[in-house]
């Protein structure tokens, strides 16, 4: 009978013995690696296609070029599309956060029974398809949609409804995690008014929730096409409309557009993380 400890495993190659935890670690790393590969492949392929020249008969491109990226970044239409897209997405995200924050504050401190009604409201954006609601909005606000400012405002309003569930859930989890009711009561007992409590205590502790809600919203909205195409399709372009116009032109250009806005989002994330000053310690 072997004297080998129960938690060691013989290598099939007859080499070094590994403990169970080492073997598990290898499996875990392998699993994460496979997952990351699956997630990264589409982005990497798009990136490669955006900087490839000829690519028809081999696994990797036969030549490389920045021509497509240069072409779209020197195209005024693309720059305006970026401007409008980010204006709409960031405004929609900020509006959602600004409106939902006080609602959550009330739900978590004074009116917990509102939660079940809010849960019902949060399902509505999923229950009504965007194609249906956008036509409804078109009929209802046709007067406002005739001018650019009106169209932008209506679109931001529509975006608010789309991201409502995501923003609400992201902030709600953060509210639950910090135990906001106790924090507010404790601050009030120390003499702080409700306003001071919100600024000194509640908001700084919701930083993670705000950032998560903001990025979920912006990432989700930047890919939105139905509302923007139906409501303001003829007035100005967003990235998605610009992308749509390229569909019969060149796959390289489309890839360059997608990879560009992906990197813009990445840069915004890095900047916000930097300014939020969140130091994650072990």
């Amino acid at each position: 009978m072997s004297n080998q400890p129960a938690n060691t495993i013989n290598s099939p190659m007859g080499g070094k013995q590994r403990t169970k935890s080492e073997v598990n670690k290898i499996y875990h790393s392998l699993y994460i690696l496979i997952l990351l590969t699956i997630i990264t492949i589409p982005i990497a392929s798009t990136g490669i296609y955006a900087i490839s020249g000829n690519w028809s008969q081999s696994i990797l491109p036969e030549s490389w070029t920045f021509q497509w990226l240069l072409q779209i970044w020197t195209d005024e239409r693309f720059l305006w599309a970026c401007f409008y897209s980010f204006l709409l997405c960031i405004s929609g995200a900020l509006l959602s956060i600004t409106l939902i924050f006080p609602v959550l504050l009330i739900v978590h401190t004074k009116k917990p029974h509102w939660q079940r009604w809010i849960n019902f409201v949060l399902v509505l954006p999923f229950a009504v398809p965007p194609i249906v609601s956008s036509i409804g909005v078109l009929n209802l606000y046709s007067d406002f949609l005739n001018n650019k400012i009106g169209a932008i405002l209506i679109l931001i309003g529509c975006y608010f409804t789309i991201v409502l569930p995501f923003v609400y859930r992201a902030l709600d989890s953060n509210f639950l995690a910090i135990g906001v009711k106790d924090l507010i009561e404790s601050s009030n007992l120390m003499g702080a008014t409700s306003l001071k409590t919100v600024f000194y205590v509640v908001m700084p502790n919701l930083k993670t929730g705000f950032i998560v809600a903001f990025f979920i919203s912006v990432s989700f909205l930047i890919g939105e096409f139905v509302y923007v195409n139906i409501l303001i399709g003829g007035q100005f372009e967003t990235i998605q409309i610009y992308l749509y116009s390229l569909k019969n032109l060149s796959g390289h250009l489309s890839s360059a557009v997608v990879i560009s806005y992906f990197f813009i989002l990445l840069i915004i994330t890095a900047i916000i993380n930097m300014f939020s000053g969140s130091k994650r310690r072990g």
Partner: protein
Amino acid sequence: MSYLRLKNARKSFGALTVVDDLDLNIEKGQLITLLGPSGCGKSTLLRSIAGLEFLDSGSIILNGRDITHARPQKRNIAMVFQHYALFPNMTVADNVGFGLKIRKLPIESRLRKVKEALELVELTEFSQQKPAFLSGGQKQRVALARALVMEPDLLLLDEPLSALDAKLRKSLRQQIKHIHKELGLTTIFVTHDQEEALALSDKVVLLNKGRIEQHSTPEKLYSQPNSKFTAGFIGNYNIGRFNCLNKLPIGQLDMAIRPEAIQIDSTNGDVAGKIIDRTLTGGVVRYQVKTDEGEILDVDVLNYGEASKLIINDSVYLTIPEDEVITMA
């Protein structure tokens, strides 16, 4: 006149009356415990005193001032919460100094007071740490320092030890007792743990269904319970009508007998029976004895000497001193 007076205090949530026409007087410098089972109204009462809930009717007078309708900010009452309620974004020192900052105290005086408060709870070396890096016991001591630094007229402790493990609970209990003795602050401590209440308090207020069941010293509460509820909640009283005690003149009434007041012996005694269970709880051995009349009595003996060595199925005799039998209304 009492330092804190609650008169005809009543608070309901919908149809449920949580505090029911309650009168309570607390003297200056006392440490009072509000004790009772879950849902008896002790936390609601505490929150009403703090101003976090408002009474439906009745009044609260603190140090001669009617604070019934005052906002929490205006009461000068400090509170320690069960789950600490420390501000995660602030360091320990900032947490403790928050209230002083709100009061716009000059920075030098603020820093001095924070330092003193942290010294009192022995946490000076953690002053620059964030709460996330502290243990449960340390967090609760920060919460205590944060309350004490405000020099409140009244200190409220809402089950401050419930979230801690047994060892920490005992150590922090001693620290609270020591700090109370040193500062002489009028303190109300809420707990559902009778051992905590008996160990800490000058007076214990036992609550049941929003009313005061008994308000007395810990000694009196334990040795002279005035109702079946008190006897059932405090200690491990044997409660009921015991026919085995027929020889006593009170044999036909409901009675309560402390398990440690009953003597157990294998040869001599008034009531014969048999051990049906034996539980070791550390320093004490608890026997369950079935008397010949078929009644079951708990008997506690110190885990020392002959009486502690009896085993299940041993025939035994119990002696119950008449003056230890409390008759119940």
